[in-house]
Structure formats: C-alpha cells, structure tokens
C-alpha cells in the first residue's frame, strides 16, 4: 500500500500523469473510485480485498479523457479491459499507464505490450462458482432454463446499471436508447427484460473480459454476468480467441474463417 502511494506521488510529481485513478473509502465503508490529482489526494487511496470495481469503465468517458494521461490502479480484470479497449481503438496504446500489484511490489505497466506480458503470468478470468453455475444451467432442460431466467429477470427494473458499469459498453448511442426503430420494449416487463439482456449479452460476445462488474452492479442481484460470460465462452470455444488478451485482436464477430465449423445450418 505504501509502495503504491509512493509510486503514485512520484508519477504525479514528475508530471508523467495528470491523475491517478484508484480506490478510496466511501460512505458505509464501501470502496469507491477516487481520482487523485495532487500528491495530497493520493493519501486517500486504499487497496484491499474490498476493492473489486473495474475502473476501466471511467477511462472512455469524455471528462476523464480531458484530464490528460491517467495512471490506473489495475486489478487483473481492469488490465484485460484496458487491453480490449486498446484493441477496439477506444484508447491509444500510449495512453495506458497501469499500476499493478505484484505481491507487495508495484509494477508500472506503461504500454499494452507490458500489460500483455504481465497478464500472461496470471490464470484465467472466470471464477469457479460462475463456471459451476453455467454448467448447472446447461445440464437443465431448456424449459427449466427458460423458467430460471424468467424468474431471475422478473426482478429487473431496467436501471441499466449492468450496461453503465461495463467497461465495454461505451457506445454513445446505445441501441437501448434508440426508439426509431424501437428494437426492445422500454418498459421493464417480461418481454423487454428478456430481450434487453439478450441484446446486451450478444453485443458483448467476443468482447467481454469476464470481470463480472455487471453482476456486482445489479441492485436486485440478478446474475446477469452469467449471460455475457456464456456468450464470451461460446465465442472463445468456437473461434479460438478471447477478449482482453491482446491489443492486436480483431473482434471475433467482425471477422471469419472460411472453415468455421457449425452443425445446424441445413
């Protein structure tokens, strides 16, 4: 922790970065994002096991881009999100400066290549509980799965917290806000809920970095992250590429191989 603050102050004082984005203690002892723009503000930074939010979400916002270069205290999920954002050309490669913890040591990762190298040492993303849940759902009959999702999604109030918390949902004009044509009913009833979550998962297929932020952000506790995890796994299995592993990858669904294998097209 002290090493992290030290490094953050150093970067700010040297003028390498304009701000350091990390976590601070918020109301009710929760952890909230904190932009430290002066060395004094750095003292409020904390980093412990309660810090789970994926901070990459903020980096594509206009007001953050206007700050200038920002250093980010980055968990592995945040690192993967940043790689994916660079791959999708939402951030410039040289705009990256990550502060990653490696044991008690702080590593400064100044480029996409450095992040890739650092991440290569880490194991893959999906928590075992989520993996088990997806397997459990796939073992059910289709009718049971339908009933499960209908029940879960019946609590959805379409607050769009899952969308807004997602680092990959950066579109300025989201399909959900578009009403000509109105693709998905706006009201949070059964039809609108099902279709909203289907569209969200499909738009994240091949792009989801499996941070699980959407599931944590959900105020009514719907495991919405399982949908994007599943879509991502399906893409990875069928096309052999994963989001958030490189700054060079093309989006799996905007490219193709002539010998892609499927079993259902007649």
């Amino acid at each position: 922790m002290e090493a992290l603050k030290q490094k953050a102050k150093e970067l700010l004082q040297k003028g390498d970065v304009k701000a350091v984005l990390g976590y601070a203690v918020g109301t009710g002892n929760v952890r909230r994002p904190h932009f430290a723009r002066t060395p004094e503000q750095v003292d409020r930074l904390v980093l412990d096991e309660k810090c789970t939010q994926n901070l990459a979400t903020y980096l594509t916002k206009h007001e953050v881009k206007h700050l200038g270069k920002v250093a980010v205290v980055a968990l592995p999920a945040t690192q993967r999100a940043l790689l994916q954002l660079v791959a999708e050309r939402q951030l410039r490669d040289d705009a990256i400066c990550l502060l990653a913890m490696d044991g008690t040591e702080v590593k400064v990762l100044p480029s996409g290549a450095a992040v890739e190298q650092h991440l290569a040492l880490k194991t893959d993303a999906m928590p075992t509980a989520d993996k088990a849940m997806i397997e459990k759902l796939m073992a059910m009959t289709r009718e049971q799965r339908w009933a499960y999702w209908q029940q879960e999604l019946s609590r959805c109030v379409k607050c769009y917290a899952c969308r807004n918390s997602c680092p990959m949902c950066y579109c300025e004009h989201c399909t959900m806000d578009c009403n000509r044509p109105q693709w998905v009913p706006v009201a949070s009833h059964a039809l609108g809920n099902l279709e909203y979550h289907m569209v969200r998962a499909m738009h994240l297929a091949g792009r989801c970095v499996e941070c699980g932020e959407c599931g944590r952000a959900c105020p009514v506790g719907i495991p919405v992250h399982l949908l994007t995890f599943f879509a991502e796994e399906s893409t990875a299995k069928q096309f052999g590429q994963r989001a958030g592993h490189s700054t060079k990858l093309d989006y799996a669904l905007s490219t193709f191989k002539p010998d892609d294998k499927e079993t259902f097209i007649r």
Partner: protein
Amino acid sequence: MTESFEPKITAFVCNWCTYAGADLTGTSRINYQSNVRVLRVPCTGRIDFMLLMKAFQKGSDGVIVSGCHPNDCHYTSGNYHARRRWMVYKDLMDFMGVDTNRVTFSWVSAAEGARWAQLVNEVTDNIRNLGPYAEYKALAVAGIE
C-alpha cells in the same frame, strides 16, 4: 392443439440466392405451404440477431434464415460473417431457454427452387407439430395489469 392452428413463419432471405431461389420455386410452379412470410434483405450479413428477436416479438411461431452457400456470397463474405453471428446467437438463445427448434438456418441457392419448397414444407410441418410459441407470446402480457 386446436386443429385450426396455422403457424406464422417469418423468413429472412438474401436478395441474391434464396430470394431468387424462392422466385424460381414460383416460376417452376412448385406448390408449397403458404405459412411463410418472406422478407428480403440485401445479404445474410444484414440479418442482425435483433431481426430474429423482433420476429418472435411480433408473434412469429417460427423463423427461417437463409442465404447463399458458403463461397457464393454476392458480397464475398457476408454469409461467413452471418454464420459466426448465428453460431453464437444460437448458443445464447439456448442458454436463455428460447426454443431453438423454432429457428431454422439454411443455405439455399438461386438454382434450388425445389429445395426452398421442401425446406418451407419441412419447417411448417415441424412448427405445426410444436404448436404456437405460447411461451414467448405470454411474455408480452406478463406482468401488465
């Protein structure tokens, strides 16, 4: 199932192969069941998954998606892109419990008029056996007093 049930089937077909193929079915005077509503799009690459979703939303009991065989796309690669999208979308539909038996993906070329008739007949019979897509239709009214 009441005997009077006639399935409503929406077909999204590409302009260059399947639409021309369906045209050939007609000019060849081949009879086939009239449950299908054909929607022509420029290319299968245009068939967004939201179109399929919309078809069910508006009350289709089944959906056919069809275009040029691989390697035959008028725009070189539209059907390859579409194929990837369907591979993922079909998985996702299944994961969410949507009945994937009601969606048929197919390649029908401009020369396969007879095949189009056969495909439509098979799908119509299949959907007729499955009955109306009551599960999905119930969504539109669920939770609204």
